[in-house]
């Protein structure tokens, strides 16, 4: 039977702490969400001063990355490139700041960040995922 890695709560804490540290280092205030490969929430942190909207958006970005197995920037770029029909894809949030968590070539979840500029959100998500290595 095929086996695949799976995120534990400890992994999530590691990812979230590293992402939060990256945000704090830059004086950024964000929400950080981690989801499993089914797009179900595993862990969420809304930093002091981040809005309820940030929390919702972080979850939505992370869900898109986890379920589609690709960065939300890929979706954003495809739409920006003129493929506007992609906006009709079911329940996606095509805004940079969501990254898939890939281990041994398998997507095991996603991280979504919202609160600052989109490329900065992604930088935070990347820092979180890098803590797994």
């Amino acid at each position: 039977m095929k086996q695949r890695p799976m995120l534990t709560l400890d992994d999530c804490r590691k990812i979230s702490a590293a992402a939060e540290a990256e945000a704090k280092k830059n004086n950024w205030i964000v929400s950080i969400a981690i989801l499993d490969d089914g797009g179900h929430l595993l862990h969420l942190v809304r930093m002091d001063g981040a809005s309820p909207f940030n929390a919702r958006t972080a979850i939505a970005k992370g869900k898109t990355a986890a379920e589609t197995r690709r960065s939300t920037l890929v979706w954003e770029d495809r739409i920006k490139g003129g493929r506007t029909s992609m906006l009709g894809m079911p329940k996606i949030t095509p805004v940079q700041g969501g990254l898939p968590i890939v281990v041994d070539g398998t997507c095991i979840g996603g991280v979504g960040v919202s609160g600052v500029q989109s490329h900065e959100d992604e930088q935070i998500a990347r820092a979180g995922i890098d803590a797994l290595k």
Partner: protein
Amino acid sequence: MKRLAFAGVAFALALSAQAQQPNPMDNVPDKMPNDIPYGTPVSLATAQHALNAALAESTKRGWKLNVAVVDSGANLVAFARQDGAQLGSIQIAEHKARAAAKYRRETKAFEAGVQAGNNYLLTLDDVIASRGGILLMDGGKIVGAIGCSGGTGSQDEVVCKAGASAVNK
């Protein structure tokens, strides 16, 4: 035909007997119920302190739950799913915390109300009639709420209380 008429009389009698009993819903209290003021939103540090205390209690007992903390505006601040906790409870944990904050009481109050036959409670907005949603307080004001789900209501409540009592002042 006769039997039908008799049934009709019996029904009318039953109705009038009911009408004579006072309806508890007609009672008008002088004071507001649950008149607890909303305070400043809980900080992430405090929310995580409550969440971790709840997770520690659940781990100690070998349970697998979802735990959510919302602020005084009923918006999610922190969430964690223990390894192997059921998926359906992700939303329920948040819902319990949100309902506790929105209605300024433990969700157990709704559970008790429904159990006592007050089914109208289920028609109120965003209610969840299951224990395991408890207020987080600071200086007599509501700063947020914690919600737990994944076990029986009673298990959820034990873990919830461990979280709330770690921060409530």
